[in-house]
């Protein structure tokens, strides 16, 4: 009977001990909820992400949405299609386009992905790369990378991309290609950055490096548009090499 | 060693049913005192709601008395020492339908503290004793009501209890099954085991018991011995009807 009376006290003590032990273990390393800039559409998703402990998964889903959004051609206000990229061989993910455009939701969605999971390196690199090199919005690209770096200070690829964006602003394609080079073999490196690097290498006459990157894209990417383009470029480089003395 | 298998002294049992507008109370047993002698077959008669099942649950430690004392072989019914000497057959026992009888018995045998060869022997003996051996290959789902009742009895016999508490052991059975169970209970009593059974069948109680308790609205209305009902002109039925009217 005495033991029976002590049970609730023992239960309460054990529960509080659990709380105390948990409190000593520190936080999750994720941005606080106040950092989640939710739109009306994303608010309930964000609640789900937090309530079910699935920030990574919801970041993934937002990233898929971002790619779908960016993969859909924008209809310009004047009713004409966007002009193709002036540079031959500068192909992007977009159907019949090169990724240029305003895409006003691109930055908010990119930031939302990172607010959910700032350690999602591939998303940060993809967003920043697209903003800087396709949409010519280097300031926005830097904002994306700086947000991710605030949580993931050891993300050297982010720093490299920041440098590449800086070189791009100063019109130094060789330096951009050099800054991108170390991250190309990393599994987190988005294929659009690889393609950018290949394109720049080709532009500065570094055909062997360009061919190697295209070959890597053709062998490793799961994006058939990029793979097809890489194969085309490899063929072009091979025939050009055949014509060169 | 106690002379009585069971003794009730001034027992009261009140059920509390919580409700939205406060709890409601129902007194099922009032100031109940009686003894069940060891080695005898005692019957319990009463109309629905008279408190028969409540008495059985108090003996088996499934309920606790609100007032008064219940002793089983001199111990509190909650004590392991008391429970080890009691076998209980509730009304309409349930067994998982996909099990074979030996598997069900093995589980209950292990709960009674049997293991190893002792458990094997107990299961085999209980199956033999209750006539389940020819049906050993069947699953519980294939059992008739009579066979289920035999299985219920078998689980109550596994640990060779000194007292069998049987709630409506012949309810809904065909005449042949009733005959077999009657024979089994008589043989168990012949071994010196006390049997305490409740029933709506006065004729069955009359055939099996040496003593009968008649309950009316939670109170003990009469304790009748075999000699008394055999001498009465209307037999046990006459005494029962007189008591409950």
């Amino acid at each position: 009977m005495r033991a029976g009376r002590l049970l609730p006290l023992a239960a309460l003590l054990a529960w509080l001990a659990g709380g105390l032990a948990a409190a000593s273990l520190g936080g999750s390393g994720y941005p606080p909820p106040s950092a989640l800039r939710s739109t009306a559409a994303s608010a309930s998703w964000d609640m789900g992400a937090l309530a079910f402990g699935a920030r990574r998964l919801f970041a993934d889903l937002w990233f898929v949405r971002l790619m779908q959004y960016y993969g859909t051609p924008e209809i310009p206000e004047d009713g004409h299609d966007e002009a193709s990229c002036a540079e031959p061989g500068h192909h992007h993910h977009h159907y019949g386009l090169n990724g240029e455009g305003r895409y006003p939701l691109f930055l908010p969605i990119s930031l939302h992905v990172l607010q959910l999971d700032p350690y999602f390196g591939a998303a940060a690199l993809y967003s920043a790369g697209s903003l800087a090199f396709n949409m010519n919005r280097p300031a926005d690209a830097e904002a994306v990378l700086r947000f991710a770096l605030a949580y993931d200070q050891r993300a050297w690829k982010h720093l490299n991309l920041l440098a590449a964006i800086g070189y791009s602003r100063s019109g130094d394609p060789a330096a951009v290609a050099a800054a991108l080079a170390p991250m190309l073999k990393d599994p987190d490196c988005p294929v659009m950055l690889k393609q950018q690097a290949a394109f720049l290498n080709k532009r500065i006459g570094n055909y062997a490096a360009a061919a190697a990157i295209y070959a890597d894209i053709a062998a490793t990417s799961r994006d058939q548009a990029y793979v097809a383009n890489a194969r085309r470029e490899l063929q072009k480089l091979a025939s050009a090499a055949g014509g060169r003395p | 060693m106690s002379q009585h298998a069971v003794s009730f002294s001034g027992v009261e049992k009140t059920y509390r049913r919580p409700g939205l507008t406060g709890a409601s109370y129902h007194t099922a047993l009032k100031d109940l005192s009686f003894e069940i002698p060891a080695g005898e077959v005692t019957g319990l008669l009463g109309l629905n709601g008279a408190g028969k099942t409540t008495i059985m649950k108090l003996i088996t430690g499934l309920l606790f008395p609100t007032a008064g004392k219940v002793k089983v072989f001199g111990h509190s019914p909650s004590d392991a020492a008391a429970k080890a000497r009691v076998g209980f057959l509730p009304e309409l026992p349930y067994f998982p339908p996909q099990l074979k009888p030996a598997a069900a018995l093995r589980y209950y045998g292990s709960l009674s503290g049997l293991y190893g060869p002792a458990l094997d022997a107990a299961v085999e003996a209980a199956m033999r004793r209750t006539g389940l051996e020819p049906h050993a290959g069947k699953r519980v789902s294939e059992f008739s009501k009579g066979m289920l009742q035999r299985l219920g009895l078998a689980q109550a016999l596994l640990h060779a209890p000194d007292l069998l508490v049987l709630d409506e052991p012949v309810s809904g059975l065909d005449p042949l099954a009733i005959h077999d169970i009657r024979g089994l209970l008589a043989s168990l009593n012949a071994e010196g085991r006390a049997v305490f059974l409740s029933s709506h069948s006065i004729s069955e109680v009359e055939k099996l018991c040496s003593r009968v308790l008649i309950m009316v609205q939670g109170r003990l209305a009469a304790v009748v011995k075999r000699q008394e009902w055999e001498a009465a002109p209307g037999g046990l039925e006459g005494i029962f009807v007189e008591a409950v009217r």
Partner: protein
Amino acid sequence: MMRRLSLLRAVALDSFLSGTRDKLFTLFSVFAFTAVYASVLAGVMAVDQEARVLSDMGLALMELTALAYALFSASTALLREAETKTIYLVFSRPVPRGLYLAGKLGGSLLTSALMLAVMAAMHLLLLRLRGFGVPDCYGWALAGSFLKLAVITSFALFVSLFSTSAVSTLVISGIMWTLGHFAPEARFLAEKAEGLRAAALKTALFLVPNLQLLNARDASGSACALPAAALVPAVCWVLACYLGALWLLRRKEF
């Protein structure tokens, strides 16, 4: 001691076998398989991030499926035994209620572990078929999910002993699950708040188990390895629920 161990094993094994025999278990397995397969479709949409999406989605679905089963089985475990009267056959025997409760909890956790293992095997097979290996931290993610399930299952078992129905147990435990994942956010808010509000939030933090601490599946960056110290709160919470449930069960009539 041998007798007690044999009793514990018998109850746990019965709980485990009835869990695995249950049609519900089969249904959940089918559901999990279908759900994980659906995640392959979502993975395809993620193109070069397919491996990450497949891994995250599969792990989350596995955990939710196991959670649904664990909560359902914990909230109905004693209720069903009382309804079918099998509890009469148990507690009319010399079975200590604490041992019975431990066996039930053990069996339930064993069922959850089996569910996670079966679903993980399916998931890894799917990943393999898509050309991916075992994701980083996969074992930690499973271990974290199991620990979270252990906490919430024991909590549901505790709640089932005083709640009026299985549905209310499910709802209360479900709320605790979500609150448990909000704990780090609540801590952040508590640090920002002042006065009475801060005190109330900080008190609440002690009363809500921080499940995010065990959420290796969703851990930030490479910090997915569960520290050994994370076991301490998990064990404390399970023990607290067990002791609370035992206190209620000791007084419970059938």
